[in-house]
Every structure is written in structure tokens, then in C-alpha cells.
């Protein structure tokens, strides 16, 4: 196995901050919405934690965004402009997750510095990081101070519209967070991807290193 440095320190700090923050937001979000059914902390405390975690995630998002804007590693997030190839690789990856992994077949995706994500990952991360997370932050900020942003809230149709969007995205995150954590166990060992996101080094087969050091 060859160790390849694919997760620089800023990305790892961002990732684990994001993981902790989003988990906190999801748990406090459940507590806030279902107070009376879930009573881990008092409602007021849950709201305060939720607000603070939200602002941390927003700040963290901008750090991530700035890092990738100023780094050549942004290529990992750029969409594949070859739709046929993208579709073929996405299907191969889906086939692996739904069949190949049970038969012990090798993962069709090979990790490298600029080819960090498989097609399904890339599509998911683009949707999460460039659409849903910013939208969730935006609606969250509006809900944080509805009076201060009353004009904007009215333009979008009122607090219920804003809240409905916030809750629907919340539902996506509720699905995504445990799902993402589980997919992290699908490396060559169950903890390999976790370890890589901790120390920055992915362990890849010698013949898998296609574009390392490009």
C-alpha cells in the first residue's frame, strides 16, 4: 500500500468541524422541533446551542470556500464535463455499492489528489456544499432574527415558507449524516477512510496511483 497525502490540514479541520457542527445542529434541531418528546436539554439552551453551532458552520463554510477558491485542489469539486463518461462511472460506482461490495470486487474508484471523489460522491458533495448547506445557512439566519429580516422573509412568502425549506433540508441532512458516516466505513478497512480524514493520508494500492503528484 502506498500512502498518498490527499487531505491537507485546512480541509481536515473544516471536515471535522463541519461534522461536529452539523451533528450538533441535527440533534438540537430535533430537540427544538420535538420538545416535549425529546427533552435532553431545556428548549432555550437547545436554541442557543443551535444558533451558535449554526454560525460556526456558516463561518466554517466560508473558510472551506475560500480555501478551495485559492487552491488547485478545487479540481476535486469541479463537475465532469464529459456526461457520457460521468454517467458510465456513476453507474459503475452504483453497481459496486449495490452488488460488487458484497462479492468482494474492487472499488472502481481510485483516490488521488485531484480525483478525490467518485462520481456519486462528487454529485452529492456538490449538491450538499454548494446548494443545500448555503440554503440551510441562509434560512437559518432568517429564522434566527425574523424581525430583523422581516422584509426578506416577506419576499419569500413568510416564516412558514422559510421554515418549511429549513425543515426539508434538515430532513436531507438527517438522512445524509448517518449515511455519510456509514459510507466512511467502505474503505479497504472499515476505519481506513476515517484514519485518512484524520491524518490526511489515503492508503492506495500501488497500481491505483494514477494521477498522484500531478
Amino acid at each position, binding site marked *: 500500500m502506498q500512502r498518498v497525502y490527499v487531505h491537507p490540514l485546512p480541509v481536515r479541520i473544516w471536515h471535522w468541524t463541519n461534522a461536529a457542527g452539523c451533528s450538533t445542529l441535527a440533534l438540537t434541531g430535533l430537540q*427544538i*422541533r*420535538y*420538545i*416535549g*418528546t425529546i427533552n435532553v436539554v*431545556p*428548549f*432555550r439552551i437547545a*436554541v*442557543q446551542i443551535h*444558533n451558535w453551532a449554526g454560525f460556526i458552520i456558516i463561518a466554517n463554510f466560508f473558510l472551506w470556500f475560500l480555501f478551495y477558491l485559492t487552491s488547485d485542489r478545487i479540481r476535486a469539486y469541479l463537475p465532469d464535463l464529459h456526461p457520457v463518461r460521468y454517467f458510465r462511472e456513476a453507474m459503475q460506482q452504483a453497481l459496486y*455499492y449495490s452488488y460488487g*461490495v*458484497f*462479492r*468482494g470486487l474492487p472499488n472502481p474508484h481510485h483516490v488521488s489528489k485531484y480525483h478525490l471523489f467518485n462520481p456519486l460522491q462528487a454529485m452529492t458533495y456538490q449538491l450538499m456544499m454548494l446548494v443545500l448547506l448555503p440554503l440551510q445557512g441562509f434560512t437559518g439566519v432568517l429564522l*434566527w*432574527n*425574523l*424581525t*430583523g429580516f422581516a422584509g426578506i422573509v*416577506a419576499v419569500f*412568502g*413568510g*416564516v*412558514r*415558507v422559510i*421554515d*418549511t425549506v429549513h*425543515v*426539508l433540508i*434538515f*430532513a*436531507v441532512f*438527517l*438522512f*445524509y*449524516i*448517518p*449515511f455519510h*458516516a*456509514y459510507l466512511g*466505513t467502505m474503505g479497504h478497512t472499515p476505519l481506513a477512510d476515517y484514519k485518512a480524514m484524520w491524518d490526511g493520508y489515503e492508503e492506495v494500492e500501488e497500481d491505483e496511483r494514477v494521477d498522484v503528484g500531478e
Partner: protein
Amino acid sequence: MLQKTGCMESDVTNPSICGCMARRLGAIGVVVAAVVLALAWTAKPAAAAGPDAQCLTCHSMPGLTMPLPDGESLPLTIPADAFDHSIHGPLGCTGCHTDIGLPAHPAAVPVIKNKREFSLKMVEACQTCHAQQSKRWQTSVHAALVRDGNVVAPVCTSCHSPHAVRKGVAEAIDTVPCKTCHAAIFTAYTGSVHGMLRSGGVTQAPLCFNCHGAHAVRVPSEVQGLKDTCLNCHKNAVQAHSTWLPNVDLHFNVVACTACHVPNAHRRVDLVLFDATTQKAVPAAEGVPQFQGPDGSSMTARPGLDPQTLFNLLQSLNRPGVPDKTVIQGRLEVSTALEAHQIVPAAAAISDCATCHRAGANAFQSVVVTVAGPAGIPIRYGANKDVLSSAFSIASIGGFYAIGGTRITILDAIVMLALLAGIGFPIAHGSMRIFFSHLLNHRQHDRRKG
């Protein structure tokens, strides 16, 4: 004489009291005059001097009344000493009763149909000197009720005893006139923190007029009225609440102070139909079918608007071509005026957020839809509580939402489904991975052995 001065005009405008009625009134007038003159000989001297003494010669006699056409009696006895010491004393009798000509009195009194008509007529006399107060009264809910034909709505003399008016009487807790009509509410007030402080001599504690106005009497539940009223005295309330209450401005906008400061009250959500441009409550929409029963009658007594009907109502009000759009602004308040006056000390007020923010909270079990009635008096229509949790509410009640308490039911299903899928899929997929991994290992092991 009565027929000549009073009834000639009435004969023209109101035929019902002409003819025999006029003759009856004339006879009554003659009887009253005879009784008055007879009693006058034995009456005690009046306290007043000058022309008023002449009036009080008769009008200080106890039990002096004038029978009216509707069968009531108009009391004519004036408490001479009280009048002499009243603020109105220096004005003299004719200061207000300008239509009574002394030489021809008492026979030549104007025709008085009933006591109510007389009170309404005397409002004009009060306006002569109290123009500003009268102008403010015209804007009041009391005046609106009078204009609407309410026969017990108060006019000047209902609150101010005209012949014994003294400064401060209307401002003292023992003599404040509001309790005459609003006895039950006044009792609730006296048990409140405000009432107890006022009774204890704390003059800064509000009495009725401090919150409702003395002459421009308003219903404080009119939209923002009560909040602003409270903040007039509790100027640092917003700041004080901001130390512990999230989204404090929003809470102050949509939750009436009494909703928390009367902890045992029944609360309700008041959904007010607003003109989005003018920010004023829209009037009852004539012709909008949802507000009318099959026979055109008001829907007030019907079970209540359901979510779709409320949605359809908004669609009707905002149909294409209507320039001013209507929106709904919601407000949490106490259900009755009686409860609104049972304010407790701040330490006993509701401060547990879960009281309202949990599912099924009592605060959201009662819902009304409000439009502006005549003279701005709110008209409330009952609504089904489901209007707050239906998916229709996203479009219809954009302006009112309480996290947890009024959450939309279908979103709960989506959230639960997402959570179950997010946890369930990894468990199922992971289990299969483990199973097939063991299976593969066994096969490899068997192959090696084979």
C-alpha cells in the same frame, strides 16, 4: 304649551308621536308643572344663589321625576350641594341646559322621548366646553357602539355625573366609572398585580384609563395596541426579556404580554387579515363566500374555517386584479377580556418555552380569524385548529409560526422517514456486507481446503 314648542317639529319628522301622543305629552307636562309648583312651596331653600336658586327651588326636591312616553321616568332631582361644589357649579344650570327658557318653564320643556335620547342630546352640551375630549370620544369604541345603535354604550353622562362632577373622581379606584358596566372585569383587575398595587396606594399602577384611554377608549386587543400600552410603562421590558428570551422582538410582535403574564388563562391564536400595503386589518369582505352562510348570514356561529377554506378565502381576497393584497398576521393572546385583566407579578409569569413550543400546546387549540368590523371593532370567526398545522398554512398563514407548537404535520412524516432511512439503510447495507463477507471467507476457506 308642550304641543306648541316640542311636538310641532316631531309631528313632521315622526308621525308616530303626533296627534294623541302629543296630547298625552301635553297632559303629562301640565301634571308635572302642577306637581312641581305645588311642591315648590314646601321645598327647602337651595344652596345655590342667583338664577340657579330658582331652578333648584324645584329640582332639589327628592323624588322629582318626569314620566316619559316609553314608560320610563326621568329623574329631575339635582343634588343641590353636590352641584354647588361641583366643577360645573359655576356654570349654572343654563350653562348646559340652554334650551330651557325659564319664563315658560316647566311647562315648555322640549319633548324627551326616552332617557337614552336625552343623554345623547346632552352630549352636544358637553362638546361646547369639552371639545377635545369629545373629539377623542368620537374615535372610541364607545362612540362606535353608539353609532352602531347600541343603547347601553356610554356617553358623557354615563361616566361623569354631570351635576356632581368633581376632579379626580373618575381617576380613583373606588369611584372609577368603568366598573359600572365592566364589573366582572374590574373585579378581575382588582385581583391583579396592577389592581392590588393601585389599591395599596401606588398611583403609578395603572387604572382602567391608563391602558384603555380616558375618552378615546380602545379595545387593546386591536393588533399591537396592548403591547404598546404595556410598554408605555414597562419601558425596559424588551431589554429585560432579551436577556433570556430568544428572538425577543418577534415574541413581542406576535405574543400579547398577557399570554404569558396571565399564566392560567385560556390562550388562542388570532389570525388577523391584513392589507399588506396599509398594514391595517381588512374589513369583512362582502361577497366573499367563506364569510357568508348559505342565507347570507354571518359565519360567526358556525364550527369554523377549515384549512382549505381559509386558503380559498385568501385566494378569493387576492384574486387577479385586486390591487391590495391581503395577508394573515397571527397573534397569540388570551381568550377573554376577563382573563386579560388577571395579570400576575412577573415572577409568576410563564417562562418555560415548552409551554407553547411543544406539540399540542394549549395555546394553539383555539384559533380565530379576525377582520375589522364597523368602526374597526374586531369581528372574529372561529377557525379549526388544524389551520395552524396543515400544509395549506404554508401559503395561507405565512405570518405566524411557533416552532414545535404549530409545526406542519406532513413535514414531521418527511423528517421521520429521512431519519429512518438514514439509519436504516446503513444498518441493512452493513449487515449484508458482514453476511457476504463471512460467506466469501467461508468459500475461500473451503476452496483452500479443497
